[in-house]
């Protein structure tokens, strides 16, 4: 397509979205196929459960279809899509009555009275070797539960930034918070999970 002398790539998300709004059903379906795996992984990580993830995946694309005409192209289509998916997953998670779980706060970094690390270097470095000391499947199960136990605000930012590997600025746009706040929340999640991983070595000895 040539608009005002400029080549427009008809395969970009944004051009497919424009075609879908104009009534091209195949363009919408191309967007679904292109993004369904990544959206599933995101909502699965955010909801922490298979059933919720399935519902959130379906609801995300229903919402995208219905609201596509409100996509103005101010941000990337993927950012807009992930915002819809994130909000849908979080609503799904909150709607489910959940058993209270023990917070991960106990695994925060520990310092002595002078502000030095309370643990020895060997203990602090445990996560670097944890995959050699714990069965992969068992470790995976424990880590998934630990991610699910993160405080909500930390988990959302951590999933988007560290697990889905989005840029900090994109996460800020999706969550509608400042980049500095994203870094602060992701940092807290990393500190707690690092502490949790360190603790696993003690229980497997």
């Amino acid at each position, binding site marked *: 397509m040539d608009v005002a002398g400029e080549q427009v790539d008809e395969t970009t998300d944004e051009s497919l979205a424009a075609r879908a709004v104009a009534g091209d059903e195949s363009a919408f379906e191309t967007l679904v196929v292109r993004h369904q795996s990544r959206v599933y992984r995101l909502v699965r990580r955010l909801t922490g459960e298979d059933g919720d993830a399935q519902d959130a995946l379906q609801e995300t694309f229903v919402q995208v279809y219905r609201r596509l005409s409100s996509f103005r192209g101010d941000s990337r289509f993927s950012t807009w899509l992930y915002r819809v998916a994130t909000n849908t997953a979080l609503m799904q998670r909150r709607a489910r009555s959940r058993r209270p779980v023990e917070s991960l706060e106990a695994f925060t970094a520990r310092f002595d009275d002078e502000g030095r690390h309370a643990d020895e270097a060997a203990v602090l470095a445990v996560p670097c070797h944890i995959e050699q000391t714990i069965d992969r499947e068992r470790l995976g199960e424990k*880590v998934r539960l630990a991610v699910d136990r993160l405080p909500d605000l930390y988990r959302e930012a951590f999933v988007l930034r560290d697990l889905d590997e989005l840029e900090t600025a994109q996460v800020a746009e999706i969550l509608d918070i400042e980049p500095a706040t994203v870094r602060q929340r992701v940092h807290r999640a990393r500190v707690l999970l690092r502490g949790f991983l360190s603790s696993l070595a003690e229980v497997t000895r």
Partner: protein
Amino acid sequence: MKRDVACASGVEVLMDYLEGVLPADVRADVDEHVAACERCTAFIAAYRETPRIAREATSFELPKELGDSLMAFLRAKRGPPER
């Protein structure tokens, strides 16, 4: 942060440090502290590994049957888009 400043201060700014958004002078102080602190070096190594371990543990694949049924669900579900 100088060497005589505690590890706790460095941990507080660790993500900013690793993302390269700290002011140059603060970054230099952190560099100096970490170079002399075995525990901070270990902590940072583990802190950097943590996201990868969590990412691999949660690398969920879209179940084939769910992928297959999604499009049929959407075709049945969707009405006309809002204009």
